[in-house]
């Protein structure tokens, strides 16, 4: 009896979860579908959900505009910067915190981790003024410099590298390995799972970021996709074009998500759940 009751509950749970998931994903499906339809289709009631009359006209129009290419390459530069910066610089920091001993280690570590708790707004205004004073606004430097490192990436890599046995490092030292070679030829290969995670997170976070690129760039050709898309939405009544832009911007994230789902799940939980 008891088992059957639990099965019944499970079934209800399954149905409710499925309904919720479909409801949440439906708007994205609608976006993708409408981007392949004539512009007027998006504003029809009842919503036009048929598969008939698909066209790539919106994407032709979108890609005919030079700015979409400029914004896309800007976004790629920023996202790649976030990815490589976080992977290389933060893993070096993580390694130092996990395996080295030096005065001030704990204070430095907690100072970095505590940045996660400060609000973005506190940093935004002074960072903007700082960049203005350095004459870096509206350049790639302004977009890249603040995002090359992230406290979260330092935290993740440190957690992972803790588990690497110290004997491995000691043995390499006896064999005469330099500090850098130990890091590069031993630590980095072993840490690939966490580095992949940090890299993907860095890429997605920077690809998606909105506030800082909005503040740091002024000219249309320094905008990232997110900021460009927002301005498109605010000025445009061509829904087909805006939705094609949205699908364009979402596609790389969706592809990364489908390919590396495992890493996303792990990355989210490793920081929060004590194992």
């Amino acid at each position, binding site marked *: 009896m008891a088992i059957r009751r639990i099965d019944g509950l499970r079934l209800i749970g399954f149905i409710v979860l499925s309904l919720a998931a479909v409801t949440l994903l439906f708007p994205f499906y609608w976006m993708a579908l409408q981007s392949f339809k004539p512009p007027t289709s998006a504003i029809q009631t009842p919503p036009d959900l048929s598969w008939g009359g698909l066209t790539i006209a919106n994407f032709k129009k979108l890609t005919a505009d030079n700015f979409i290419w400029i914004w896309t390459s800007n976004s790629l530069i920023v996202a790649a910067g976030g990815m490589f910066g976080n992977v290389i610089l933060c893993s070096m920091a993580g390694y130092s915190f996990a395996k080295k001993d030096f005065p001030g280690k704990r204070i430095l570590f907690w100072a970095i981790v505590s*940045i996660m708790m*400060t*609000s973005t707004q506190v940093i935004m205004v002074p960072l903007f003024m700082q960049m203005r004073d350095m004459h870096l606004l509206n350049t790639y430097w302004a977009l890249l410099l603040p995002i090359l490192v992230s406290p979260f990436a330092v935290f993740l890599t440190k957690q992972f590298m803790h588990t690497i046995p110290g004997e491995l490092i000691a043995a390499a030292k006896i064999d005469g390995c330099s500090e850098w070679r130990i890091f590069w030829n031993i630590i980095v290969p072993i840490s690939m799972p966490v580095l992949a995670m940090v890299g993907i997170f860095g890429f997605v976070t920077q690809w998606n970021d909105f506030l800082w690129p909005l503040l740091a760039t002024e000219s249309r050709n320094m905008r990232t996709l997110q900021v460009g898309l927002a301005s498109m939405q605010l000025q445009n009544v061509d829904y087909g074009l805006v939705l094609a832009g949205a699908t364009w911007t979402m596609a790389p994230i969706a592809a990364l998500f489908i390919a590396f789902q495992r890493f996303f799940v792990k990355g989210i939980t490793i920081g929060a759940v004590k194992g």
Partner: protein
Amino acid sequence: MYRLRKALPGYLFLLPSCALFAVFMFTPIFRGLQLSFQQWTVSGYEWVGFSNYETVFSDAFFWKSLGITGIFTVITVAAGLMLSLAAAFAIDPFKEKTQNVFKAAFYLPSVAPIVIVSIIWLWLYHPSFGLLNYLLDLAGLKPVLWLGDPQVALFSIILMTVAVSQGPNILILVTSLGGIPKDYQEAARMDGASLWQEIVHIKLPMLKPTMTYLVVVNTVGSFQVFAPVYMLTSGGPNRATTTIGFLIYENAFKKFDFGIASAQAIVLLAIVMIVAIFQFRTMAGDLEY
């Protein structure tokens, strides 16, 4: 000398990231504090003591935006975590494969850029051809001005935020639930505990550390909400959705009143820190049992 030599590699590995943190995160925090005591004009700045803070505290809009932010935070965090908890309990009993499908489905909306989510929800909320009003019409109900009605607009932003941002919460809670030793469950069942008793007396208490963490992280995030406000309502109608995050943006980058914006940011930081510490204290108080 020997000690320094031994410590040197550790410092060198830290140097690049610490330099970047120092210049682009710590310096701005202190500069922000400094800015909050200055008044900026085209010709430069002057020190004005606490006058920015006096202006901020005597500004009715500031208090209004604090209230709006408070409502936004309390509802998004409470509703979001309750839904996440329910989802996690529903996902927990399934086999790994089924679990992964649900995890992915709930997580995908949270990795979507907020700009895109907003563009889609602008359609859902559209007064004439939006899906929500179409559904209301089908049900024979009157259309709602989701983003145009000052009474409703904030709740529309809350609804969108709660709907799309539960992915991380659900993942973390499912993982925590999976980590609870099965012996406890079996023992409880042998003693004849009902499913409900098992959840309330065994699982919820075991989830407490995770919940504490999630409440704090979600609160810190909610207090800063900016992009949804910018995209959906620009703070309107009639300032009904002007959160403190948006107010700071307006003051700094529309009115170029850096001193006022910085004072508001410092107040925001102070509130966030007090709330975070308070939450850790009250929720983690009886952790050691």
